[in-house]
């Protein structure tokens, strides 16, 4: 096992700052797109929930990808 250089402190802090946005923005986009589709199709909240679910999946996967370089 070769010795890895410690990741730079500032680089890591910057990534921490990105974590919240990575989770929040797909959620918000999913909710917005879902409610827009609900408005078009006159469904009650089917697409809103689907959009939220998709946003959640994207957010969690994005967060995993963001930090996978450290594992």
């Amino acid at each position, binding site marked *: 096992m*070769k*010795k*890895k*250089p410690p990741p*730079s402190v*500032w*680089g890591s*802090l*910057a*990534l921490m*700052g*990105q974590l919240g*946005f*990575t989770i929040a*923005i*797909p959620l918000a*986009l999913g909710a917005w797109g879902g409610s827009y589709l609900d408005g078009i199709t006159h469904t009650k909240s089917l697409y809103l929930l689907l959009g939220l679910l998709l946003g959640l*999946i*994207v957010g969690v*996967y*994005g967060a995993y*990808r963001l930090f996978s*370089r450290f594992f």
Partner: protein
Amino acid sequence: MFLQWRLQSFNIPPDVIFTPFGFSITNTLLCTWITLVLLVIIIYFGTRKRNIIPSGFQNFVEWGYEGILNLVVGVVGREKARRFFPLVGVFFFFALFANLLDILPGIDTIGWVDQSKVLAAHLNPPGSFLLSGAYTSMIIPWFRPPTTDLNVTFAMALISVIVTQIFGFVALGAGQHLGKYFKFKELFTNGVQGPIEFFVGIIELITEISRVLSFAFRLFGNIFAGSAVLAVFAFLVPALGNIIFIPFEIFVSLVQALIFALLTLVFMEMAVTSQEHAADESEHEAEEEYVHNEEKELATSH
């Protein structure tokens, strides 16, 4: 009456201050130009003499430049730093100076008097150029920090993401780079896992796009909020409150500029490494760099 001031209203869109030839010049655009001119002046005077042994102002400019350069080299290694540093460095210094305008006196407080508001409040035009009383909340400021305008930060975020994509295309080739997002090959070859991997590729594409928003809103939100905090505390605790908040804003300006530049750097590095040997090359290079620096430090400390 004379010593009464009112807190100005905070509007998110910037105000138009001149319209020469029908082209609207906003206060943030004016400050963007000021920032650029300031940067050019600093670089000009910092590199005018170029002594081998720097001193004075040249030393200061080199210190700032080398600080960022070493940070970039530490994250991606020397080879890639040569490609990435021009953009990352410009992002850092532009964002830093744009943010730091926030703490200068005169920002948000010098400007035209908004005649429509004066008329709406049934007041006479102000008598002198020093405003007091109700007029103080009717200013259209001439100067407003560029990064408190969503247009500026959005443009920076777009440049960051698009250039990252270009680096990805150049480093990996169109096929492999697009293959990160559209996994048609895996869809048909990997059996049951195929559709999942295809879906993951699409997710990757969405995160890529949502990064424009996260970059733009982080910088905009932090600096806009900082500017609002400075204004509010100037009214809540006159003279004393900002003894705490101006240093804090200087810190926030530095950190936000650094975060914007470093995140751009990190994502560029992610874009140019293919997924199969992600982390291999660059880590190897960064490791060599690290060992090299350690040796140098040891040598100088003895």
